[in-house]
């Protein structure tokens, strides 16, 4: 599955999750949620089937969920 991490930091939790998911054969991309623009760009470029937010301090722009 194509998975996108939207995360404020690629910290230990996010890194551990990436290992577990890639070991199970999933394709994981990481986008740092530094601002709305970065999140929109990450979502548009990766076209994920699933978005996971391991550690997110910002809110995800509506345009992504719609």
């Amino acid at each position: 599955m194509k998975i996108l991490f939207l995360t404020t930091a690629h910290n230990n939790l996010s890194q551990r999750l990436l290992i577990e998911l890639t070991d199970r054969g999933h394709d994981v991309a990481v986008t740092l949620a530094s601002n709305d623009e970065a999140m929109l760009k990450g979502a548009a470029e990766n076209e994920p089937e699933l978005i996971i937010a391991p550690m997110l301090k910002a809110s995800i722009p509506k345009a992504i969920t719609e």
Partner: protein
Amino acid sequence: MTTLLPFPNLDGVEDLISTPRDPLRRRRVAFLVFDDIEIVDLSGPLDVFQYADRWLQITGRDNEPGYEVIVVGLRAGPVRSASGLEIIAAHSCDDCPGEIDTLVVPGGPWIERACAEPGLIDWLQKTAPRVRRLVSVCTGAFLLARAGLLENRFVTTHWMYCDRLAALHPSLRINRDRIFVRDGHVYTSGGITAGIDLALSLIEEDLGREAPRFIAGLMVVFLRRPGGQNQFSIFLQAEAPNRPDIRELQAWILANPAEDHAVQRLAARLNMSPRNFARQFLAESGMTPAKFVEHARVEAARCKLEQTNLLLEAVAAETGFGSSERMQRSFQRLLGVSPQDYRARFQSTARLEGRMRHEDSVPYHGA
């Protein structure tokens, strides 16, 4: 019967002796390279690991894992360093061998260009979680930070780039003076050659104290260098104040370090009350007036120590410290070295050379 060897017959022992060392048992150290890389950031630590591997062979410690050093680039092939010298990346990010033990990310003077390369950042985000040690040299910390790998961590980088790193990534706890910083499994080092110090310390972690001592001697560097990065920095993180009157006052203090710079007198120059002045000054320049004066005096004394042969007392008097003891305390506080050591380390080589040429010329009365 007690078994002394894991092999029941002699053939097994001979196999063990004649078999070349299992490449899997070596720790893989990967260096990431990219355009405009600072070559010493790469070659310094790389040499340390290579020498450590050879040291193990020379000393016959074959039962300990050595190091296999690999160079990885965005694409395999030549990469142009900042100095123009080309490096060959043997592996591309896509075909990089797995199981990296230590990932080293060097820096470069135009690190933002590398940070804007999505392929590099993506590779770091996918590779870094699987390494035992994550290391940056110099401005390599910018790449790790850009990949989100340094959030909230204690780090350092080249002294000249600390302010920029702090502005880009406010959550980082940056220590400007340290030669290198370890936070968990993440190691960051200061400017350029500080990467050698860090690599020596990584070797010590793996192999004990003997190997780094030998390698430091071989490479003619300090095993543990005295003092931090600040002694190498050129001037205070000149946070330029917006207010022209305070900017002018700072320039005046720098030009006249020997004057009496009590807060009352400085305040009077700007027609402010001491309280208001101190508040305004702190807000504009990020440090108190007294701290600024101390910085300015240390800076003036540094110049005199580097460029003159004046006695320490004379330097202290000319730069407003009054006594050499006060100068000594300020040097220790701000630079982590004594004035004597500072002079011995940084006195202008041009002066020394000049003196030698002069002496050489004396006995010469040739045709």
